[in-house]
């Protein structure tokens, strides 16, 4: 009479153990998955829903006016002359800032591979921009670049160069914004490049040196080819960062003068918070996500090809 419940008890436990064994990993992932759904999937679905309705601040409390408009918001996005101008501005801003960040960051990263006096102190200084929030970077540089009392103009005046309206002059505003943004990203590139170079095999460098290669030959034929996948990852991160850039430009110029630094994120902000056209802003945001996905896919493809090439 007692043997049967005991064997049943063990059978249940064994069955649970088998089930737990099979699903253990999935169950551990579940909390993170649920958080992801709550924090990412729900807002994304909400955004999609918003983009196919006509919701503004004026009608958000009036359900009868929240009409389903299909894809017409997307048609409006592409019909808006600001779309192409802000995309063009974003592209110029992105390409130029990535070029500066990558160029200067790469040079500094390679420089720091050498052992020299004061290296450690300089590296700590290099970390400062990473520790600053974008808004603080914007405010800091807005003060430095002020045409009347900024330090930059003062330093230029010392060497006899006339003061400039860095953030208000039509020809200087965009380069100024690019340089400020790049200043915030150079240290990141430097640190990643430094880490990547220092993790490269010493044997390869030694072998090249034994074969008679000088510094630049080693750089060209050993260091840089091995760095290529890392550089592509850096470009990927910088490109995403540049595409969604908002804070620094908003603080520095607000998109001015005359819309010359108005990147796409500022256009989305304007639709949502100046014009209260939430649905149009949602459609614009989805277009930005689409553009980012296309760009990332292209870069990932290039990265795979690069890694594959390196393997051969």
């Amino acid at each position, binding site marked *: 009479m007692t043997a049967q419940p005991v064997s049943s008890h063990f059978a249940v436990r064994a069955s649970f153990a088998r089930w737990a064994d099979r699903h253990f990993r999935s169950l551990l992932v579940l909390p993170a998955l*649920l958080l992801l759904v709550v924090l990412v999937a729900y807002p994304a679905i909400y955004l999609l829903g918003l983009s196919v309705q006509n919701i503004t601040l*004026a009608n958000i409390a009036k359900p009868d006016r929240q009409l389903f408009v299909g894809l017409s918001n997307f048609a409006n996005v592409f019909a808006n002359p600001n779309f192409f101008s802000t995309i063009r501005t974003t592209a110029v801003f992105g390409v130029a800032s990535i070029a500066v960040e990558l160029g200067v960051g790469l040079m500094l990263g390679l420089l720091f591979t050498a052992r020299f006096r004061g290296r450690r102190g300089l590296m700590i200084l290099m970390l400062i921009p990473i520790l600053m929030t974008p808004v603080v970077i914007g405010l800091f540089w807005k003060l430095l670049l002020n045409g*009347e*009392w900024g330090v930059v103009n003062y330093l230029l005046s010392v060497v006899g160069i006339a003061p400039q309206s860095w953030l208000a002059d039509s020809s200087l505003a965009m380069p100024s914004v690019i340089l400020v943004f790049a200043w915030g990203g150079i240290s990141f590139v430097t640190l990643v490049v430094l880490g990547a170079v220092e993790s490269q095999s010493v044997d390869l460098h030694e072998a090249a040196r034994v074969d008679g290669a000088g510094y630049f030959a080693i750089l060209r034929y050993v260091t840089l080819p091995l760095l290529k996948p890392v550089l592509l990852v850096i470009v990927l991160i910088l490109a995403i960062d540049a595409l969604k850039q908002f804070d620094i430009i908003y603080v520095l110029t607000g998109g001015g003068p*005359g819309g010359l630094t108005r990147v796409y994120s500022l256009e989305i902000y304007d639709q949502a918070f100046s014009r209260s056209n939430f649905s149009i802003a949602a459609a614009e945001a989805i277009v930005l996500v689409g553009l980012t996905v296309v760009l990332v896919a292209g870069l990932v493809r290039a990265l795979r090809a690069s890694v594959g090439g390196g393997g051969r």
Partner: protein
Amino acid sequence: MINVRSGATTRALALAASAVILATACTSGASPAPSTAATSGSSSAPTQASAPVDAGGTPVVWIFAGPEGDALKAAGDAYTKATGKPVDVEVLGRDTFNQKRDLFVASQATGVDLIMTGSSRVPSWADGNLIAPVEQYINADPKYDWESDVFPVARAESAFGDHLYMFPLDTYAEILVYRTDLISTPPKTWDEYLTVAKQFTKSITPSSPTKYGTAYSGKDYVPEASWFSVLWGYGGDLLDSTGKVVIDSPEAVASLDFHLGLLLKEKVVPPETPNWEYPEIQIALQQGLLAMASHFPAAMPELEDCAKSPNTCGKVAIAPLPGGSAGQFSAAENLGLVMNPKAENAQAAADFALWVSGTEGGLVYTKAGGATPRRSVYANADITAARPWAADFAKTLESAKGTIRSPKASDLLASLREELNKALAGQQDAKTTLDNTAKKWREILGQ
């Protein structure tokens, strides 16, 4: 068996830990947030008929940081001291206040009863049933002197349609700040203004003690307001009395041509004007770079403080902005408290709003650094002693004008700002700017 049991125990513990982490994360995210109604089509819209309820608790008020926030906080303390009624004045960061405020209002949430806002938001919020009418509270308080004491512009800007939606708390309007050691009589017309500005611009008059004759804000929300004063003085307007777009009238074009000319042609304002707003003008005045400026009275205490502003203390005054053939006007921005239609402490909130925007509380608020739009406050001896320019500012408020009273005001002003920014950058002339703006406005308004 032992291994299985031991492994199962470990797994069970790991799962329990994961569940706790998840539960903690969910709880910490959910509990402190105010309860929000759904913003989708299924939400029940507040209507003017659904009066806010009153739970008899402490009313919560949102305001942004700065002189207004400090003043309201001080007034809140004084109110509690005077009446024994508590009020929770929450001062939020100025930079992101508008976004937080707009999202809160749009979400139709509870948890905040009164919100400080600029009057330009009132038409769209009122039209969308996102704020509650407040005239029943004002009408029920016989001591609340509305008609004779509150400046006309503040009364007009607190209303939309047939209802009042705002307790007017703070009104600011652009005024002319000028250096009394340089300018004995402030210019009364825009032509005189240009003459004086040229006289004090070093590139035009090398002996000028100041680098620039004048300045106005060209960035963010001020560029259109700076021009409005010129526009109305020239006899132009934005919309006519029937709501028809008239922003492209010849008078409007002439006024914008003059306004842009100060920067692009005459060069009597700093070249950085397109990127300047209140803080930059204030610093330029403090540094002695300007002889005068289209500015705000809130700047005066600092400009008169010899420790902070040695170049301007004792030699700065205000006057109404110059006028044109049609008269003298200033664009006023009215700030006030609006009531959440879902306010949980509506009566207590209204009691506080009536007090702080009334004669007694208004005085406390103004003494603490605010600017209550009441004639009696500006005639008060304490105020005139502390602010010698108070009478001049009151005079400005008498003729001040509000802006667009349309639910589409935000969209209209954003379109205008976009075109004005191009004009200030020298990308297009006044006529093109206003033609483009008028075209966009007619599309928005369906004309």
